[in-house]
């Protein structure tokens, strides 16, 4: 009798252990599929940073780069879905590929970054209130400008990029109603040389601060700023470290953190709000302005930073409503 009891005990212990091990294994695996390539020190790198955060907690994951080859979009999503639980599609370009692929792969959970695709049960879309962050950097740009002209270089004339632009303009006008905002589109996210040409043209038009919203192309804007001794503003990640003398601040859009949040929420309570859109805004803390760290020279005064903080609160509380293109 005793023997049976002890056997039973041992058995149940083993079972409990096994189920514990099972819980360990239950962490989902995550594949991040990016439309372009890593190394932009901006949008795609931010998404990959989110995966690194997840990996630090034991999640298995990988990044698949499509390198702007549109014929690989669908296939990369499918390949990712074959071996991973979560597939994060980074880039608005994945709209149609996801529409085609996701319904065929109902067991995979898709997170779609940067475009609001609703109504498909296994796609959870995340968009960002870039307009709110751009409002703040527009305000800073207008305050720093001595010529009364500021500029922006956009990667493409489309809804997402223009969501930055409307906020930027509004923030600038909030600081100085007479400010002139010059915008130039490069139609390319991967070519720093083009970014530089566009920035040089804007500086020649009298702009003395330029906001880059063009991914890797935007690195050329920093080059132009260095050459001309003028100011630039970074995008998506805190880019100040790239050129601390000319980048006054960056509009941070925490793509990586939002992906991290979405996956951890699922791990914690199993919730996956498929079919819906999460607009990550300033209130959620995923949109902010970065000024690098203490070791870097600061062009923005403490007084101005305090003003920006006050504006942040006004946006969060809804006192200031920032225009949007969405």
């Amino acid at each position, binding site marked *: 009798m005793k023997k049976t009891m002890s056997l039973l005990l041992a058995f149940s212990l083993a079972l409990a252990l096994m189920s514990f091990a099972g819980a360990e294994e239950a962490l989902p695996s995550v594949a991040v599929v990016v439309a372009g390539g890593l190394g932009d020190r901006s949008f795609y790198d931010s998404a990959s940073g989110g995966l690194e955060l997840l990996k630090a907690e034991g999640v298995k994951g*990988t990044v*698949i780069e499509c*390198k702007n080859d*549109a014929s690989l979009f669908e*296939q990369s999503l499918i390949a990712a879905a074959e*071996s991973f639980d979560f597939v994060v599609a980074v880039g608005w*370009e994945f709209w149609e590929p996801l529409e085609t692929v996701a319904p065929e792969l109902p067991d995979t959970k898709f997170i779609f970054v940067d475009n609001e695709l609703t109504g498909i049960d296994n796609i959870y879309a995340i968009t960002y209130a870039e307009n709110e962050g751009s409002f703040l950097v527009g305000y800073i740009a207008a305050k720093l400008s001595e010529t009364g002209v500021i500029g922006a270089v956009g990667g493409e004339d489309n809804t997402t990029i223009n969501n930055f632009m409307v906020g930027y303009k509004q923030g600038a006008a909030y600081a100085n109603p007479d400010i002139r905002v010059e915008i130039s589109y490069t139609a390319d996210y991967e070519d720093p040389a083009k970014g530089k040409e566009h920035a040089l043209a804007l500086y020649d038009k009298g702009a003395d601060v330029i906001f880059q919203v063009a991914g890797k192309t935007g690195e050329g804007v920093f080059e132009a700023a260095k050459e001309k001794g003028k100011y630039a503003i970074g995008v998506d990640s805190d880019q100040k470290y790239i050129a601390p003398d000319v980048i006054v601040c960056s509009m941070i859009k925490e793509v990586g953190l939002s992906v991290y949040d979405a996956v951890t929420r699922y791990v914690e309570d199993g919730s996956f709000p498929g079919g819906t859109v999460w607009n990550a805004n300033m209130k959620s803390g995923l949109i902010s302005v970065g000024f690098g760290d203490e070791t870097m020279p600061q062009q923005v005064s403490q007084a101005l930073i305090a003003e920006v903080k006050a504006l942040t609160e006004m946006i969060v509380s809804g006192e200031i409503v920032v225009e949007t293109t969405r």
Partner: protein
Amino acid sequence: MMRLLRSLLPGRRKLGFAYLFSLAISVALALLLGALMMRLTGYSPVEGYAALVKGAFGTRRALGNTLAKAVTLSMTGLAMAVAAQAGIFNVGGEGQLFLGGMAAAIVGSQLTGWPAAVAVPLAFVAAITAGGLYALLPGVLKVRLKVNEVITTIMLNSVAIYLCAYLANGPLRTADKGIAAGTNAIDPAYVFPRLIPLSNLTASAVYAAVLALLCWYVMKRSTIGYEMKLTGQNPRFARYMGMKTDRLILWSMAASGALCGIVGLFEVYGLHRRFIPSLSNEFYFDGMLVAMIMRYDPVGIVLMSVFFAMLKIGGTAMELGVGISSELILIVQSIIIFFMAAQSGLARIVRERRGRRAARRRIEGKNVPQGEATS
């Protein structure tokens, strides 16, 4: 530079046994170097290459993707070869591809509700016309004004690509939600069916097979192909023989552009269902390399395309499965191309050394019979 390009044109050089032999050695060496790099970065080469082959042919879907990539490569490669046959170096295929895709997308999105049996052929006509006429432009400049086609075709690429980007962002931009830039979608009835579900392999492959056969026949078996070849090898001789060389050049250029235009149509009707500004990611230049490596031989181009497609599709799977960076495959490809570019030089060195040794032997040992020394 020009001499280098000219040396790549098909002339007296054929896809002979010696050439194929050195090609095989190049490929083997490149794969060996790739294996060495896998070793150095801490991966097992056997595992890596196994994952590559499995990733390219292991499942039905993978096989479909590999074949689909091979279709694009071989069609662009054949387009290059058709022009090269008449001695023209068409570097403008990328632009011709974009215009063909745009023309086909316009037909498919404007003429909605027509029977597919009417609309799809019309789209083909549009793509062929757009690509062909656009290729004729540098052709006419070459024939009439002796303007070098390499320069004009390269520059016309930008013109076409930016024109299409303008149309897709401006007058023809769709109002569909979520599409940042692109034309309206073509009628769903016109979309090419997929031959393997969820893969990129569509009915394009069937059309491509027919076109490849046609290319082979024209280039290798027809009189016009022979005349094109003579024009390419020795235009002055061909003219004295009474051939209308100018017309031959124009026709081969138009055919090359038309093929590129059809590749654009394949991308639109097979994959994207609308024209998008990222329609091609320098597909033509990949095809050009394949054509150059295979010395513009149509059969060789098709076979080499399958090999390059295997590297491309398998490379991604290798990265996913084993963790070896897919950039390694780019290195392997580059090494193959590098070796093949050096091949003619290397072959000459080997030939000369052998000749010199034979000559020396003839001088030193007069007792050696002549026939043996030259063999």
